[in-house]
């Protein structure tokens, strides 16, 4: 069959059945899908970055929001999300090891490594559910969402208080912290505090908030909650569908489908998707939790 192929109507558009990319149709389409998906996430994260800077100090700092760690008491900022990141990177490693085993037609190796990848994905999803639970529930202390009114800063600027979240200084609930710290000084200086008569006035028009949902957020501006639910939710949906896809391929590997076919390219294709999910998390981790 080699060297006898001539240009005819069947092969002309196919470049004589040679891919200029040196890749199969399926792999190419997976890459194209990933580009479009990457653009969606780029849009979400740039919008997040924009609003984060737009609202300045009204925006909560993630390290004050996500401070829990399972079975441990106290304040552990970033620790759990760092562990989640590690688990997802680890599952990316096991995925690429499954692809490598596929290239050697090592069915057992693919089963083992793909199995670990499935486990990593499941743990990550569970962790995300756990984190959502804590974010939705909030703290025991709660916060006060201020009502309509104005507040004059030490430098004379008048700020509108509607919707601004003020947090309690401590358990005694004797002082509220207003989030205008930049004007009050540099980032390490305390927030503006409200006590006594001013506090009573603010409490009368304000509302107590516990936890976060789409319209209220005890940690700060409600848009933070919206972005959190939307971006980590959209990413979690990707992880979930990734786990489903990996599971389907896993079953096929066990049944020997790809061994019969002579190659494990399907593992490579879901592998691309899985690495992409990990890649998105790398960015979510940076822009949501670190920056």
């Amino acid at each position, binding site marked *: 069959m080699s060297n006898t192929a001539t240009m005819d109507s069947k092969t002309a558009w196919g470049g004589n*059945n040679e*891919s*200029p*990319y*040196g*890749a*199969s*149709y399926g792999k*190419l389409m997976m*890459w194209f899908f*990933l*580009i479009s998906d*990457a*653009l969606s996430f*780029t849009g979400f994260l*740039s919008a997040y*970055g*924009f*609003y984060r800077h737009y609202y300045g100090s009204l925006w909560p700092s993630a*390290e004050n929001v996500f401070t829990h760690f399972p079975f441990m008491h106290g304040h552990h*900022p*970033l*620790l759990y999300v*760092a562990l989640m*990141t*590690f688990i997802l*990177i680890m599952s*990316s*490693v096991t995925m*690429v*090891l499954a692809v*490598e*085993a596929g*290239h*050697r*037609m090592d069915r057992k190796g693919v089963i083992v490594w793909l199995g670990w990848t499935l486990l990593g994905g499941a743990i990550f999803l569970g962790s995300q559910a756990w984190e959502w639970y804590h974010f939705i529930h909030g703290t025991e202390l709660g916060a006060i969402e201020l009502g309509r009114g104005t507040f004059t800063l030490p430098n004379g600027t008048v700020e509108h208080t509607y919707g601004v979240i003020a947090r309690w200084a401590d358990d005694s609930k004797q002082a509220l912290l207003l989030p205008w710290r930049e004007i009050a000084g540099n*980032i*390490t200086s305390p927030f503006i505090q409200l006590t006594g008569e001013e506090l009573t006035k603010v409490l009368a028009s304000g509302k107590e908030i516990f936890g976060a949902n789409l319209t209220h957020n005890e940690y700060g501006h409600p848009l933070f909650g919206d972005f959190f639910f939307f971006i980590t939710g959209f990413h979690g949906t990707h992880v979930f569908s990734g786990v489903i896809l990996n599971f389907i391929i896993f079953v096929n590997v066990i049944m*020997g489908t790809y*061994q*019969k*076919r*002579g*190659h*494990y*390219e399907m593992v*490579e294709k879901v*592998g*691309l998707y899985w*690495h*992409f999910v*990990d*890649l998105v998390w*790398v*960015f979510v*981790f*940076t822009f949501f*939790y*670190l*920056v």
Partner: protein
Amino acid sequence: MEHSHDNHAHGHAPEPYKYAAHHSEEEGKKTRRMIWNMFWVLLAITTFEVTLGLVWKYLEINWGAVKMTFIILTVAKAYFIVAYYMHLKHERKALKNTIIIPFVLFALYLLYHIFTEGVYSEMMDKYFF
């Protein structure tokens, strides 16, 4: 492994599958070494990022510098994942360009709009809230 010595496994795959990759035991060893090396690199970067995120306030490092470090390290991590784990570094040039160039162009375009057109949100706040 029972089918690994049939014709399909060694380059005689039917036409649509000729691009499916195979490699030998030695090549596999090399690839696995690369995979684990990359793992340590990714782990080191992540550990550094988390540590920096926790200590920068106490070390009184400038926040702008910290932020830029985070972004540069994140892009570095993304490069390692795409180039090595997603194998893009060893794909043909045509495939690399087709994937990287449109994405980078559109991403920069998005950022451009956010930086230049973002002023309208102030008007939104004024007129709608």
